[in-house]
């Protein structure tokens, strides 16, 4: 009897001692039309779910109940219930949705329609289109300010960052950046927008008040040709001190000090690293590596890669549950 009590005590201790960072990550796999569900504590695949064609952009409702997924070739945004992992609905995204962003209040989804040169604003609750905003050619990157008043879209061919007033749904400013801007991310204090340029190989830091580029960050990795460095995904820490930039076919993630704009480190990950996501405790960063079909977990305290995990074919985007 005592033995059994002892075993229970050990079991209980083991359960409570398990790391607090047991979150769920959702990875969209562009090529095999699936979404991989990953436990961030054990770093293991929990389940693989069939979704629409060419899943790319992925995000999650602020309460963690629904995952929104761009099924680009199905011209729709799918809603997936995180409890049952079943597709429970769709949103009228317009054709070829690639990337989107959810407003800070969680009510509006802004979708970039790559083929139609539009940004579509959708009311998540009523599933109605609120507005269609014409932007540059091949819109992709989407960022929203922490106060929800400004939205930034980048257009790949026009090479511009378009600032959109979310109240009037009109473009207020256009800022020219380097060739093929892919992604836009606001600093948590809303003072700056960071825009990556895939072909230009730079990250432009735009002052949100002045709406002009204040700094261009360049990258150089020893032994790699400059053209392999193609910045795509950006993730800025909640305290705003560090920014991580995925460098595409360079297979590295750059760690940037946001005060000095200096690259402090390059972290080796899988091939063609595309997008990034932090766990809510900010202790782990997950990268999607499209060509090596895996994701890499990075410890943000040491900025060392911890483990890589094989997921579906061509992982594209990743989002982590808030709880």
């Amino acid at each position, binding site marked *: 009897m005592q033995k059994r009590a002892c075993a229970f005590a050990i079991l209980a201790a083991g359960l409570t001692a398990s790391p607090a960072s047991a979150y769920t990550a959702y990875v969209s796999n562009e090529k095999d039309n699936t979404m991989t569900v990953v436990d961030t504590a054990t770093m293991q695949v929990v389940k693989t779910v069939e979704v629409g064609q060419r899943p790319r952009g992925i995000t999650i409702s602020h309460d963690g109940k629904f995952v929104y997924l761009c099924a680009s070739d199905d011209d729709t945004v799918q809603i997936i219930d995180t409890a049952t992992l079943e597709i429970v609905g769709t949103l009228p995204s317009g054709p070829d949705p690639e990337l989107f962003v959810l407003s800070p209040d969680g009510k509006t989804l802004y979708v970039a329609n790559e083929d139609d040169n539009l940004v579509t604003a959708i009311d998540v609750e009523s599933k109605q289109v609120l507005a269609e905003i014409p932007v540059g050619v091949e819109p992709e990157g989407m960022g929203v300010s922490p106060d929800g008043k400004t939205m930034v879209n980048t257009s790949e061919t026009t090479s511009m960052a378009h600032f959109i007033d979310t109240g009037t749904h009109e473009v207020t400013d256009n800022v020219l950046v380097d060739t093929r801007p892919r992604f836009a991310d606001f600093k948590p204090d809303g003072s700056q927008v960071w825009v990556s340029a895939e072909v230009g190989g730079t990250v432009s830091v735009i002052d949100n008040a002045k709406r002009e580029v204040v700094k261009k960050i360049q990258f150089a990795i020893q032994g790699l040709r400059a053209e392999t460095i193609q910045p795509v995904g950006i993730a800025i820490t909640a305290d705003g001190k560090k920014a991580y930039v995925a460098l595409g076919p360079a*297979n590295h993630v750059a760690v940037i000090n946001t005060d000095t704009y200096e690259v402090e480190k390059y972290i080796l*990950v899988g091939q063609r690293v595309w997008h990034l996501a932090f766990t809510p405790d900010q202790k782990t960063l997950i990268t999607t590596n499209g060509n090596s079909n895996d994701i890499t977990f990075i410890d943000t305290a040491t900025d060392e890669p911890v483990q890589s995990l094989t997921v579906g074919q061509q992982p594209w985007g990743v989002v982590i549950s808030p709880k």
Partner: protein
Amino acid sequence: MSAPAMPGKLAGIMPVRSEPFGLRHYLICLKGVVLRECLRFLHQRERFISSLVRPLVWLFIFAAGFRQVLGVSIIPPYKTYVLYEVYITPGLCGMILLFSGMQSSLSMVYDREMGNMRILLVSPFPRWFLLVSKMLAGVAVSIVQVYAFLIVAWLWGVKAPPLGYLYVLPALFLSGMMLCALGMLLSSLIKQLENFAGIMNFVIFPGYFASPALYPLWRIQEASPLLYKICLCNPFTYAVELIRFAFYGQIEWLSLGVVAGCTLLFLGGAIIAYDPSRGLVIRKQDMGGNA
């Protein structure tokens, strides 16, 4: 085992001990042999520097050149992508042990030619004990070299998990013992110092290149299945893998078994080869004396 084998002509000079040796005596002998090897190593600064320069050249120059060529893929014990420098570091540790083991075999040949070996061989301790002591001395010196290399590699930015540097010690010891025992066995077969070049060509280079020290074995398998099988027959392959896994706190049981088995095999062979009653060494000692 306790009755020491002594050459007949010495029996008259040294008093024959009737009681067996105690542990203390053995330790004194071991200490003497190890200290002599260490002293010899310390006095040969060039040897220390060259033993350090060789792997560092590979790490700094070769690894830099091949960084992109060999590509990245995840194989155990690695959990994520590693740079080529990180991949070859365990192989370079093995390289130090290999060269060092062969060097101690070279020193056996040298000792025999110069007549120094007699001092060791007239010792009243059993021959196997003398050989093992000599090997322990050789391994101790190689391990110092390996750690010196690892410190420089660490400063260069090639880092293993901190505890890995502790875990790797037993793996280095066992691998070092295997390679020293192999060197010892070979030294019994070499008649003259000049023949050491043969060892370089027939043992060190094939052993080193036909192993996963520089490239993962799956790469070799892609190129040639036959070569892959040759690599699998190479004991050095298992020494490298044992060291590689140990850096990450893991035990590769197959490698452990092969390395331990080969150590015993080579050691047994060396003991037989150096056994005076078999006549192998006596014949060569005469040659050494005449030289």
